[in-house]
């Protein structure tokens, strides 16, 4: 299906998923305005949110099934219509749905009877979809702002918690700062090329219009500012300082959402911008190279020193940002498929780990130390097993999706001639064994400190569902990744326009289920 984005009918079709989600968000707001007092209202809002996410995933699927593509129009399109967008959309929607499922129990337990929570999740997801699909720097920026503002509020949604307020404030200040960088970068790029459309920028850069004299410098500075802005959002070192406090202070489901969905969205936008608009500019490769190495080394080393599980996971998410940056550095060709696969695996394992942490903790989980998990295996063998699988997958151990993802990134890096980055990745992965294994060790090899140590641990039926989906997905894709690899590959062509990317769709139709659900 070829969509001519200059006609409004086709443009609306191309925007179908976003429109569906927006409509649902209005319904949700209306509903919340009437019913916002009891736990039942909260559950209702949650169910509506799930329906919204599911129908949006359906809309994405409809576009994907018809192999929707944008007609090559001379006008710069605002929104991309390609498989990269569809796959990332499923990822965002899946992460959001798992987060909502996780929140039912959590919000009631922590007495956060605020149905707006769900509305904010929907808005944030909408922002992510615009970031993953935006074909214009302005659209990307709008999506980013929509996402960020929603998540600032989500981080501080627990008004009774001082840590939550601190997290929200810190996130807001630094996030606003990063947005400023990003916006200024966009302005400079516009100054150098006269456009904000990604493809138009690529054409300008390719034609050398931005090059030569002042234009070249301006473009370079603009690109650098863009990288700084995105660096904040993906939590790359040295722009990661906000991560531990924000992750630590936010409610755990929100942290899970930030670590999986928000990060994935920022990466998707970064990937699209770099791959589509600036693939002809050589300068960013080296910058991303250094960012990746610094992020992997620093993230892993600091995570090694953490005693609290949540902070450890926060720094581990920094480290994983480094692994993803390796895929970015490998370039749009081989890198993007590896990048997509790893995002899926990473989302599953992070959500699973945070879901289990949410079950263990009380009052914001600031105090769950790794040693507090001691003896969990004897008391809750299945939960311990699930957490062990998540840890091994984060470590990149064979048999889990984390391994296939890491392997894919390594393959992409080696085939892009980045052997040094690949070596850095594996060496820092070894460091990460030093903090993932102690979790397993505590659960299985240390005795329970007292008989009541794990009494309060409750996951709830929906929490179990989330964990089961995550663990089953991790194990399944660890052994049988074929379909997902295929999907990532066809979706992974975000580089310069590639006509061969129209896939034979039907054979792959069953593959996306776990992420879309």
């Amino acid at each position: 299906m070829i969509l001519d984005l200059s006609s409004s009918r086709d443009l609306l079709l191309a925007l179908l998923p976003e429109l569906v989600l927006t409509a649902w968000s209005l319904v949700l707001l209306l509903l919340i305005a009437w019913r916002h007092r009891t736990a039942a209202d909260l559950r209702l809002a949650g169910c509506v949110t799930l329906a919204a996410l599911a129908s949006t995933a359906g809309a994405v699927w409809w576009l994907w099934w018809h192999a929707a593509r944008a007609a090559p129009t001379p006008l710069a399109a605002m929104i991309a219509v390609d498989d990269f967008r569809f796959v990332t959309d499923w990822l965002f929607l899946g992460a959001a749905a798992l987060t909502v499922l996780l929140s039912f129990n959590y919000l009631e337990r922590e007495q956060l009877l605020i149905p707006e929570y769900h509305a904010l999740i929907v808005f944030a997801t909408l922002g992510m979809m615009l970031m993953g699909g935006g074909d214009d720097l302005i659209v990307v920026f709008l999506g980013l702002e929509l996402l960020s503002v929603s998540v600032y509020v989500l981080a501080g949604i627990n008004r009774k918690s001082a840590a939550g307020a601190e997290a929200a404030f810190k996130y807001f200040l630094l996030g606003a700062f990063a947005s400023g960088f990003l916006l200024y970068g966009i302005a400079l790029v516009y100054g150098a090329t006269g456009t904000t459309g990604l493809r138009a920028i690529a054409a300008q850069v390719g034609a050398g219009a931005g090059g030569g004299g002042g234009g070249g410098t301006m473009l370079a500075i603009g690109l650098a500012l863009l990288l700084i802005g995105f660096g904040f959002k993906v939590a790359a070192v040295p722009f990661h300082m906000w991560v531990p406090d924000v992750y630590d202070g936010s409610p755990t489901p929100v942290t899970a959402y930030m670590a999986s969905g928000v990060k994935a969205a920022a990466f998707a936008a970064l990937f699209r911008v770099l791959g589509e608009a600036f693939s002809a500019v050589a300068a960013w490769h080296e910058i991303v190279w250094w960012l990746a190495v610094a992020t992997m080394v620093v993230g892993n080393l600091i995570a090694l020193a953490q005693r609290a599980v949540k902070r450890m996971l926060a720094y581990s998410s920094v480290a994983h940002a480094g692994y993803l940056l390796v895929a970015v550095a490998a370039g749009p060709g081989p890198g993007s498929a590896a990048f997509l696969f790893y995002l899926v695996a990473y989302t599953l394992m992070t959500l699973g780990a945070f879901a289990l942490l949410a079950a263990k903790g009380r009052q914001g989980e600031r105090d769950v130390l790794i040693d507090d998990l001691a003896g969990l295996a004897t008391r809750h063998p299945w939960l311990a097993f699930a957490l062990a699988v998540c840890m091994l997958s984060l470590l990149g151990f064979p048999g889990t999706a984390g391994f296939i993802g890491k392997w894919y990134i390594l393959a992409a890096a080696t085939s892009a001639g980045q052997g040094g980055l690949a070596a850095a990745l594996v060496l820092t992965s070894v460091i990460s064994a030093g903090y993932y294994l102690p979790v397993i060790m505590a659960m299985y090899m240390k005795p329970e400190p007292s008989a009541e140590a794990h009494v309060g641990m409750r996951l709830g039926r929906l929490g179990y569902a989330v964990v089961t989906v995550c663990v089953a997905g991790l194990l399944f894709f660890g052994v049988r990744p074929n379909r997902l690899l295929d999907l990532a590959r066809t979706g992974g062509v975000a580089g310069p326009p590639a006509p061969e990317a129209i896939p034979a769709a039907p054979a792959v139709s069953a593959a996306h289920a776990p992420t879309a659900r």
Partner: protein
Amino acid sequence: MYARWVLTALLVWPAVAAVAILIAPPRWAKHLGFVASLIEFAIAVPLWWTFVPSGGMQFVCDAPWIQVPLFGTGAPWSIHYTVGVDGISLFMVLLTTLLVPLSVLGSYSYITTRERAYYALLLVLTSGMIGVFVALDLFLFYVMWEVMLIPMYFIIGVWGGDSRLYAAIKFFIYTMFGSLLMLVAILALVYLVGQRTGIFSFDYFHLMRNLGDLGPLAFWLFAAFFLAFAIKVPMFPFHTWLPDAHVEAPTAGSVILAGILLKMGTYGFLRFAVPFFPAVALAPPVETAIVALSLVGILYGGLVAMVQPDFKKLIAYSSVAHLGFVMLGIWALTLQSVQGALLVMINHGISTGALFFLVGMIYERRHSRLIAAYGGIARVVPLFAAILTFVSLSSIGLPGTNGFVGEFLVLVGAFRTHPVAAGIAATGVIVAAAYLLWALQRVIFNPLDKPENEKLPDLTPRELAVLLPLVACIVWIGVYPKPILDRMEPAARQFIESVRPPGPTATAIAP
């Protein structure tokens, strides 16, 4: 039928049995584990007769696993499930399936907590070990290589001694460090060969055939493989995880660590590192360095073993020395030395396995591994003393036992290419005699001066059932090793030819 499915059955059966153990009532766990591992052995035994010595890779089973055109080129990266054995891996498989039931039987009274998990992990470990030895696809090999880490990590960490956590994590991180670099090397290899041939395959023979000249990159790829395998062997500077892991592991864990896991390193050299990069492996500086490290391992391992107060640690260090012989045998590259190296691999599994069992048995009685805690116990436990003496003599390499045949072949073979090294290695045999005989003297002879030792019970029938098969193997290989040597000779010859083309061999080895 048997030829096609036997290896798959060997891989799958323990995993299935492990699940069964987890479901069954806890009091059945050890019996189920024993029966399952016996069945595994029974599946493997016919390999001995159906194996055709000159047949190259046999019992091959091949099925596509992951096939995705990863990067733009359109050529799929094909990962297969490919398994097969030749004269090198056959014995490793047989040794594994022999040691596992004995380990299970030897754990009956040692393991008293979480029995289901223990026996299930032991069986999963069996799957992983078999997988490493039969994998003919480098991806499968890597996966198996790593998968086997987890059960061992748990076995050490949950059922081990006092500082088990430290030993477990050290073991894990050392091994993972080496193997991840190997993963990068494998990927680079597949990519380089794929670029040249258009086929991105992890298949062992495809890579072997099409490697060609890799130029200076070959050195780094070899280095990555070398590191992974040298840590596992362990060669001299990479050996520090071994004493910790061996000492802290429960008896069966030590037996399997020493008996099988260490062999994966030398197996890796024989199967992958040396045949892939013969030019690097035989380049004079590399060769000299590795031979020197092997010699250091032999002497250093022996000397450090001599001063150990802890019997288990003594045996652990003796492993470093024995594996030094294997490395020397591989690098000496003569038919005798390679066959000898293979034989030492088997012998070390049997003799050292038996020694670890014996130390475990006496530890269960007396709860001390210190040599100084014993003395004169031959009078109390004559059967134990007799078997310990016999096994120690085989470990030393007394003629008539298996140890002699292996080390003798290595020395004879090495003498032709590396006379000086062989001379130095021979003194290692003397050192081995010194530390083991001295330990024997302090444990079972000397005056019986400690009252705690006067009431020690002798070996039970179950313990005899664990030890006697090993003793039988010691005698058999010591007296009549021909059937084994016959089966491994073509593979050893092929290994040498793949490394050093047949023509100039005769002249090249005379310095």
